């Protein structure tokens, strides 16, 4: 039990937590808005756009991975479809650039419904293999269908703001990405607090039990899946307009899908800002490796080593790790059951469960003492 002074600290913390959180969010907004003026040169600004792109993808991915616990390695498919959808709508139908992005997101969402119903019947290894295979087959189609997609030589997208200089172009897309990211984070936060979110988390913790309790698990999973695909597709659409040149190998790559998983994991998939934090760290590392070791293939090895380190030593992510550390010091005794994983519960059960029969004499007296 916490002592009187500790309870006092807890109450004071609870009172200030709201203020602290608001302060943190406002600080984040200020930082987000002022980054471009702090970065001097256009290269750094373009790197910031790349990182925001990753952040939007990872946050989009987290609608699926964070709430339902289904780890998709194939979200690059929706990124690429969003990018190619935008490019095709502009090049073939002469649509206005941002109308094309919106329509591409809509199309990808419609595609994601049957794909979701099919893929979400699977669990575990089959689900992972299915999502990877989905990227690979779309890659194959986009590489081979020359007349429609431009094939392996790629596809160019006209710039949406031809009058802007390159740094101004980066700047505008920085704010576009930032706005979309803020919207994604807001929606994630709202779902996190809603009953819908609670039920999705029920699926994450134990799908069969959630179903037994009356949660329409399949429909819920598909909704989360479609939302997730839509945000990833929006990131892809903006990327097409920003970068202006698409190549199937880079748009539909398992690597991009794995980066989304990695970023969400580094930050922590159960927290709102986890994917954003992960995207900043991993995105920065990726850009750093490419800039410094990009001449040789060793940057791939560096990326791989980073991935190994995260998986082995930080599987829960930074934010949950830090929160747990803070909880241990500040709010001892107070736990939140909702955020406990199956595994932790099992471990707790084991450690508090009946002792292994290492002392037969003891158990014999217990049994003997009862009628």
């Amino acid at each position: 039990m916490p002592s009187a002074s500790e309870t006092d600290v807890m109450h004071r913390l609870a009172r200030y937590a709201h203020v602290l959180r608001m302060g943190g969010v406002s600080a984040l907004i200020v930082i987000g808005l002022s980054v471009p003026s702090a970065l001097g040169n256009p290269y750094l600004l373009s790197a910031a756009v790349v990182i925001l792109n990753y952040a939007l993808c990872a946050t989009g991915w987290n609608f699926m991975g964070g709430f339902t616990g289904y780890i998709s390695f194939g979200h690059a498919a929706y990124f690429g479809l969003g990018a190619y959808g935008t490019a095709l709508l502009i090049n073939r139908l002469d649509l206005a650039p941002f109308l094309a992005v919106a329509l591409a997101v809509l199309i990808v969402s419609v595609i994601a419904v049957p794909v979701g119903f099919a893929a979400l019947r699977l669990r575990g290894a089959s689900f992972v293999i299915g999502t990877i295979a989905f990227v690979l087959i779309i890659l194959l189609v986009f590489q081979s269908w020359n007349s429609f997609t431009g094939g392996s030589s790629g596809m160019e997208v006209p710039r949406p703001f031809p009058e802007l200089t390159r740094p101004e172009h980066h700047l505008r897309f920085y704010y576009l990405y930032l706005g979309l990211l803020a919207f994604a984070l807001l929606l994630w936060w709202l779902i996190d607090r809603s009953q819908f979110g609670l039920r999705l988390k029920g699926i994450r913790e134990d799908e069969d039990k959630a179903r037994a309790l009356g949660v329409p698990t399949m429909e819920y999973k598909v909704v989360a899946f479609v939302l997730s695909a839509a945000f990833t597709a929006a990131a892809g659409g903006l990327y097409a307009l920003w970068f202006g040149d698409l190549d199937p190998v880079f748009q539909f790559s398992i690597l991009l899908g794995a980066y989304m998983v990695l970023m969400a994991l580094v930050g922590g998939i159960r927290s709102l800002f986890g994917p954003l934090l992960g995207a900043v760290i991993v995105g920065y590392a990726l850009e750093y490796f490419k800039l410094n070791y990009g001449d040789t293939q060793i940057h791939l090895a560096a990326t791989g080593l980073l991935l190994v380190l995260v998986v082995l030593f930080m599987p829960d992510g930074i934010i949950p790790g830090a929160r747990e550390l803070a909880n241990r010091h500040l709010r001892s005794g107070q736990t939140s059951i909702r955020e406990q994983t199956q595994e932790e519960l099992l471990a707790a059960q084991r450690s508090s469960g009946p002792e292994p029969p290492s002392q037969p004499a003891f158990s014999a007296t217990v049994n003997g003492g009862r009628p």
Partner: protein
Amino acid sequence: MDSTVVFQTVILGVLLGGQYALLASGLTLYFGVMRVVMLAHASFLVLAAYLAWWFTTSTGLDPMLSMAITVPLFFGLGVVMQRILLSRLRPATLTMMSCLLTLAIALVVEGVLGFLFTGVQRRVQVGYGSAQLNFFGASIPVVKLVSFGLAVFGLAALYFILMKSSFGRSLRATIQHKQAAQLVGINTDRVAGHGFGLGLATAAVGGTALALDATIFPSLHWYWIGPLMAIIVVGGLGSVPGAAIAAMILGIATSVLQIPMGATWAQTVFYLALFATLLFRPQGFFGGRLAQRF
């Protein structure tokens, strides 16, 4: 369509299927002993192919002799990888984390290969490189026959290890039911390590076979991941014979469909078979009772 051409493509399909079967059997072993989806298998295949190429260019000997070094080396690497990396993952998140971890290993292998040997495409030169064999009107390149022979040799060795040795019995018991295997006194952790080594050793044999009849480059492994995963799912995750049968069928199917569809579109057969299996029979077609648990 000319019947000779069809006959020839079927023969080539069988030869291709043999290679796929050997490689997919390794993947099946990893999945069987640890429930791990091993995305780095194909990158070790390419690594073995590079070692074979390097061995031949620096010594002038036949690339197949490199297996004397690569097979034990890969076995050891597999055991080490399982012991110090994969066994540290938590059981509850094993599937997802093992995917990330093995993808990371694949990236490291690809990066190091690209760094050491550059991205230039390499090709092993052997004396019988351009020879053709006439087989009932179908002309079959000798290198393809040799690499098929290697695959058959590898599969046969694997079969004997799994079916006839006491280690194989322990391995099969571990795949079938880990706890039950522990109850009868099998050290399943050690068996899992050795099973992993055995899987990676198949990549050494397969890589040598690959070096014989293909041009190799560091990013080649991406082309193998999809087909190999399709094979193990169609065959039933965890079933070695299932993987071999599925490999044969899909190998022949792609080879035959190359004539009307072209080489790239024929690859879609793997994915279509994979999706059809996942939709209608997620436990796979030849896996039997074991695969139903996944």
